[in-house]
């Protein structure tokens, strides 16, 4: 009994000590957080200034590579990703040189290997936004079957970033159905490439992800020419994508009195149709335009919507 008591006391003492150390560590993290944020912002500013100087002065050497290696390659990678994400037309060679000199690619892959879950996805996403080599293309294949969906998507993005010509094949092989958030990300990447997108070929593909990509491109660029291709996707076997097609047709202000469209809307679930009517009211469709498929009770609801949005439609 005495031994048990002593062991218990020791256990409680060790636990208390551990808790004290943990609390102390956490307190230090909180107290130093403002200092770390200021330091990060300072490094970010210096690096950005250095890179922009290289671009606009034509000077080939970015100043202070050692400084950035010591202070944080993660910050450098984030800056490059942000700059590449918001601008276009800058010569990629200075950035490639900086990535090589500072060993950014190797650094990020080390982080990918050590981290798990969303942290790993974050570093993969950074890799997909900076100029990478063939090594990244091969390494990313390892994470295409990761347990975490976001990791799988970011790994595919890394492969797409490296291989512009094979990007559609990479998307077709992707095991998951891409979500609308992922679709927005993919459309942004296509914009960055600045290459023409043959959306008709994508629509004709039997692969659902490629069809969805085509839908995203059409919506994003407001391509009213794609109305026929959109209508062909409408199908009861595919209610979710078909609902997406309807929203795109409304965003493009296409006619909804078309036979296939009107039939599909009239056969929709009432709650889905109600949500669609709210969107159509915001897009400015008149009650007259919807007369072919709205039951009387929903027509009154639609009139009240139009009145509430204070739209003057015929």
């Amino acid at each position: 009994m005495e031994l048990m008591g002593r062991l218990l006391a020791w256990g409680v003492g060790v636990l208390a000590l551990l808790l004290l150390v943990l609390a102390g560590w956490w307190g230090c993290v909180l107290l130093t957080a403002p200092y770390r944020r200021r330091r990060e912002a300072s490094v970010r500013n210096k690096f950005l200034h250095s890179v922009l100087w290289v671009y606009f002065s034509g000077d080939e050497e970015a100043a202070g590579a050692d400084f950035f290696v010591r202070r944080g390659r993660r910050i450098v990678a984030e800056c490059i990703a942000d700059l590449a994400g918001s601008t276009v037309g800058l010569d990629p060679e200075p950035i490639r040189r900086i990535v090589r000199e500072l060993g950014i690619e190797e650094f990020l892959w080390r982080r990918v290997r050590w981290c798990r879950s969303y942290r790993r996805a974050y570093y993969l996403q950074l890799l997909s936004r900076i100029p990478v080599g063939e090594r990244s293309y091969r390494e990313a294949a390892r994470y295409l079957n990761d347990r975490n969906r976001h990791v799988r998507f970011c790994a595919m993005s890394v492969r797409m970033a490296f291989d512009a010509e094979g990007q559609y094949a990479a998307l077709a092989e992707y095991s998951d159905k891409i979500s609308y958030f992922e679709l927005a990300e993919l459309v942004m990447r296509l914009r960055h490439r600045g290459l023409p997108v043959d959306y008709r070929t994508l629509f004709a593909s039997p692969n659902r992800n490629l069809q969805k990509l085509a839908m995203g491109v059409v919506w994003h660029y407001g391509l009213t020419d794609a109305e026929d291709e959109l209508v062909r996707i409408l199908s009861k076997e595919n209610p979710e994508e078909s609902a997406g097609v309807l929203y795109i047709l409304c965003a493009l202000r296409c006619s909804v009195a078309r036979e296939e469209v009107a039939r599909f809307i009239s056969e929709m679930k009432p709650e889905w149709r109600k949500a669609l009517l709210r969107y159509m009211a915001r897009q400015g469709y008149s009650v007259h335009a919807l007369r072919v498929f709205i039951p009387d009770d929903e027509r009154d609801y639609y009139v009240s919507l139009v009145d509430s949005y204070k739209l003057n439609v015929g």
Partner: protein
Amino acid sequence: MYRILIMSDDAVLRKAVAFTLNDLEAHIECTDRMETMLALFRREAFDLVIVMGTAAQMCRHEVMETLRADKRRSPRVFVISWAQSENVSRRMLTLGVNQYMTLPVSLHRLRRKVVNEMGRWS
């Protein structure tokens, strides 16, 4: 001196654009929020306002009202946003925006446009 006001909540983009224009004979101010931009604009006269981010912010009625309140001066307004469709660009021009560009933005092209504006102003 030509006065330029830049608004963007993206710090990297804000600094990149400011750096692109910093060798021009212009005074440049940057801000990260629309409210701060409007407050700065009310306090001082700017010749060019560059708004970057979402075009939706420009649709708030107080934004263009503030920028066009003083009938004696007519600052140029550039909007740079992600929205690509024709509807949005037409709406921006209807609101009174002078130039609508889409993101990702070409810094060289933006600089050329600003230089042209400065040439007209002088």
